[in-house]
């Protein structure tokens, strides 16, 4: 697995270069859309959390939509990517945030771009995005079952066995453009 910014937690210079990388990535994904940082990532004395949690976050101006990316220490041999939609109740409003947890590689960057575009540009609802995430998980797990792909989701033995049962049923129902797109995206 080829990671991007593999040493981002080892020194501050690399860490902030990585944050800048995410900033530029989102500027490319969301052209002509105004967004701003929403969640604080520094302590009371101004020092950064410096833990990738979140590595980057944004909220679309005049909207209740946000994106929250947690970048984890790269240690998996396979693709590590998880996502869900969560609500954050602030003082006077409720924000819907697309949470993405990943180890950063070209593959997980592509998956992020795809989900964020659908969440923000295509303005998908949380339920539509959750369905997409389910399809994505199924596609990744489907590859896991076939065992012929070098990149797979890390799933512990017990979870994997449970998933094998449920996924085989879901796989029968795999169809539609969205799933085809996701499978292409995941193709090695």
């Amino acid at each position, binding site marked *: 697995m080829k990671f991007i910014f593999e040493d981002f937690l080892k020194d501050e210079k690399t860490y902030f270069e990585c944050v800048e990388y995410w900033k530029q990535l989102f500027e490319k994904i969301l052209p002509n859309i105004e967004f701003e940082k929403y969640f*604080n990532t520094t*302590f009371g004395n101004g020092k950064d959390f410096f833990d990738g949690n979140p590595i980057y976050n944004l909220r679309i101006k005049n909207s209740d*939509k946000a994106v929250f990316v947690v970048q984890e220490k790269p240690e998996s041999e396979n693709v590590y990517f*998880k996502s869900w939609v969560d609500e*954050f109740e602030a003082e006077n409003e*409720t924000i819907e945030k697309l*949470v993405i947890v990943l180890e950063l590689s070209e593959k997980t960057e592509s998956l992020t771009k795809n989900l964020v575009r659908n969440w923000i540009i295509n303005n998908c609802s949380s339920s539509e995005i959750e369905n997409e995430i389910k399809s994505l*998980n199924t596609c990744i797990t489907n590859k896991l079952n076939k065992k012929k792909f070098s990149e797979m989701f890390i*799933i512990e033995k017990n*979870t994997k066995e449970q998933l094998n049962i449920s996924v085989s049923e879901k796989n029968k129902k795999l169809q539609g453009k969205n799933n085809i797109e996701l499978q292409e995206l995941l193709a090695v």
Partner: protein
Amino acid sequence: MPIKKLKTSSNEEFKHRGRIQAQGEKLDESEAWSQNEPPTKNEGIEMAEKLKNKIPAVQATIREGAFDALKRFIIQAAKNGGVSAFVSKSFDVKGTEHERVDLEVRKGIAFIDV
């Protein structure tokens, strides 16, 4: 691009609010604070422990690492002047699809050292 209108809720009277949440496919438990004094480091750690003891043992076990990471963050926060809203952290359980421990500071500050 069509943009959804903001949802609004009533103002809370307390100065400091937040919660620690254990979430997953079959779990949604939390410990919240809503008070006029910011929660201290020790109170934060106590809330994390309380939540860990409140959830089924198997759920606590798989979240052991996530709870440890949360406690490390609380201690780190206390050493560095606490944290101010809005803060959101997701301590993920690797090897699972949905299991995690979340921290939210929704209003005011949290985890000061006294």
